[in-house]
């Protein structure tokens, strides 16, 4: 199982890294978290019973590792906020990540900033599918929702974001 899992892991690493990055907020920490998550997945290969989709299982391990990291690293935690804490977290992530090159891209910054302000349910579905790179089916498995619900939430998130972006770009929101 571990060998198969190891091969499977290779195709999931990028998403695991992005999930970690948006939770812990720095490239180095995300790298560590993704690495830890891979190690844990390999060590727990025997406990994977196959009933849960592999993608769901790995996502859960990654999220848990990221939260463990935040708990352990109080000092970093004090200086940084995560997605749930609002727009500043987005900007911190932008500054910390390889996306620094895109820092001047106002649309990108604005979009990420506004994602943080989405309603919880929409935001989660939107981030899973549009940022982490999960398919609707995978996001549905992770969130324990139907595919239709995910589709609906992603659509609603887009609607909200487009309206807000238009408002910002039109100068209606300071």
């Amino acid at each position, binding site marked *: 199982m571990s060998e198969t899992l190891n091969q499977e892991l290779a195709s999931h690493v990028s998403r695991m890294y992005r999930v970690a990055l948006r939770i812990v907020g720095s490239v180095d920490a995300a*790298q560590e978290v993704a690495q830890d998550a891979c190690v844990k997945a390999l060590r727990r290969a025997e406990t994977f019973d196959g009933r849960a989709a592999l993608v769901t299982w790995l996502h859960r391990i990654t999220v848990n590792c990221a939260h463990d990291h935040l708990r352990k690293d109080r000092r970093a935690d004090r200086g940084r906020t995560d997605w749930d804490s609002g727009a500043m977290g987005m900007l911190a992530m932008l500054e910390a990540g390889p996306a620094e090159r895109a820092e001047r891209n106002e649309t990108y910054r604005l979009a990420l900033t506004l994602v943080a302000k989405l309603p919880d349910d929409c935001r989660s579905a939107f981030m899973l599918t549009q940022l982490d790179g999960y398919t609707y089916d995978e996001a549905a498995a992770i969130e324990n929702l139907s595919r239709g619900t995910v589709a609906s939430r992603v659509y609603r998130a887009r609607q909200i974001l487009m309206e807000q972006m238009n408002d910002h770009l039109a100068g209606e929101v300071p």
Partner: protein
Amino acid sequence: MSISEEQEILLSQLIDGELPVDQANQVLADVFDELADVLGNAEAGGKLNAMLQLQRALKPWRRQEPPKGIVAPPPAKNLPSPDQPSVGARRGAGGEGVSHSNWRLLNLATAALLGGILVAGGFFLGGRFGIERPAVPMARQPIVIVTPEQRQEIARAFTLHESVAGPLSWYAADDSTIQVAPAQEGETLRQPIAVILRLTQDLSGPSRDATLPKTYVIVCRNSDAATIELPQSAVAKTVRLRLLPTAINGEVNLEYAIAADGSDRGPDGAALAGRRAVGLSQTSLGQLALADRLVNVDASAWVIRDQRKP
């Protein structure tokens, strides 16, 4: 407004669903931009265009990748098996491999896999040595000084392997293979000491060896002799090391014996033994006189002080 052949090819691929999603969205957005110029935005077209713009805006995030390789398919040769003990399995005085539980084997396999992964992903430092060199080269070859970053990476790699395989007596890696020796139950583990062993071609020899230079990263324990059989290479069919590092006032006194047994160029072997005070700069341990070439052996060594926060 006519479109170029390149755009037409893209449209053709779009119809077939053959474009990656980001490129497909870009093509659609371009089409809508043109339509907007000519026809103005119909409602559905305008909304779709806005969605495409939003999707495109978030593309940089979706393209984020780990800066270093994290995981890859395992190199099969690193997998230890009960029938064929790993080269790195700890051997007793009689040369017999130590038996392990299945879980131990799984851990070892995982450690070996991770080792290979780290090596493949650029974690291994062999190719990066030589960055920090003195301005004046020494007579034989430039001195290589191990940088703090390299020391940190080695400490992290060792810690990672210990986190997977449990306490290790030693760990050895080259650019393609990782070996680990788990500590025996009850064994007292002293401070880890890292040794960089570097084999280079002596250019005064009659022939050239394309496989050199070769770098090995070894972590063993203070005042604890490690006997390591390095994997077969073009340098020699086998290279056996016995290292006994002793940390004295922050420096490492390295007792060593190196034996190389023949190669595909000839049956001759060579051996080298001695004791040196070794630090972060490259120190010569001597030369191995193989069949048709001389191989310089150099080492750097230091005490790994804090594995958790290297």
